[in-house]
């Protein structure tokens, strides 16, 4: 993401996954805030119903197009988005608050697989990080269900199981 200059994604990680940031509000005010990030999750699903064979989770027969049981999907409903537009990229201003994308929820994909954690632990340790219990693999805004706008569209079929709400 960093190498591809996907700065909107970095802004989302700051505001919506981690949540402890200095940012510029929509009104132009510089703010320091504890937004909660992933801790605001309102629902948790396990298993994405699609073929997937990522590092450390390559357990499923190709022929069956099985889901990947090791992915946990946290659902949050933040009131804003956070991005990092190009004109701010070379400054230390932090992310820019932006209006929430229309009809969406925010999804964060986490893996607790020991092999995945082990593969990332050294790099995290070198960066000064502490104990690692799970790895955030991806995050994105996702179209919301029309039946329950706090959950992703087609949540009944796209995930294997709903763990809590």
């Amino acid at each position, binding site marked *: 993401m*960093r190498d*591809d*200059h*996907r*700065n*909107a994604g*970095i802004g*989302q990680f*700051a505001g919506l996954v*981690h949540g*402890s*940031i*200095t940012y510029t509000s929509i009104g132009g005010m510089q703010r320091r805030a504890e937004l909660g990030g992933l801790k605001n999750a309102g629902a948790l699903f396990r298993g994405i*119903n*699609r*073929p*997937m*064979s*990522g*590092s450390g989770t*390559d357990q499923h027969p*190709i022929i069956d*197009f099985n889901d990947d049981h090791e*992915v946990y999907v946290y659902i949050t409903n933040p009131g804003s*988005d956070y*991005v*990092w537009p*190009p004109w*701010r*990229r*070379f*400054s*230390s201003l*932090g*992310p820019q608050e*932006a*209006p929430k*994308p*229309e*009809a*969406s929820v925010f*999804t964060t*994909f986490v*893996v607790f697989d020991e092999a*995945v954690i082990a593969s990332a632990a050294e790099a995290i340790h070198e*960066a000064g990080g502490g104990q690692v219990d799970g*790895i955030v*693999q*991806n995050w*994105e*805004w*996702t*179209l919301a269900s029309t039946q329950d706008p706090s959950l*992703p*569209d*087609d949540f009944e079929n*796209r995930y294997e199981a709903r763990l809590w709400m």
Partner: protein
Amino acid sequence: MDTFLNKLALGQTVEEGGFRPVARYYPPMDFLLYLKEDCSYRADRVDQFLTLLWHPYKDELVGIKLKGIRVIYEKNKERLAPGGISSWPIFALLAEILLDVLAKPLIARLEPSQQERLRDKYRRAIQFAANENAEVSSDELKRAA
């Protein structure tokens, strides 16, 4: 956290040229992502293999996500990995492999109205990739091997 983020953002120099549309394979989640601009997007799951990425506020496609690339690569290695080919047009990957080989048998099992909805979304993705002249390099695809 601020320091970490600033390192991420400030580590990018003007000389690097900033964002450009590129198809990138993400091994941990086993998908190929093509985004035409650096913006948030709304993911619209079509089926097991395809997700459309919509602009956050407009009815406009800004990208596509092709999922299960390792499966796709392994099942179509002879087509995707012949010598001498340096890149694949993504519209061809979508039309000739994802849709024709993998998705069509699954779509055929659906109700007629659902079938048309999915076919329309595949058509949109193929048109988007063609308009963008989006390609994925053979080296990028091989990362899924």
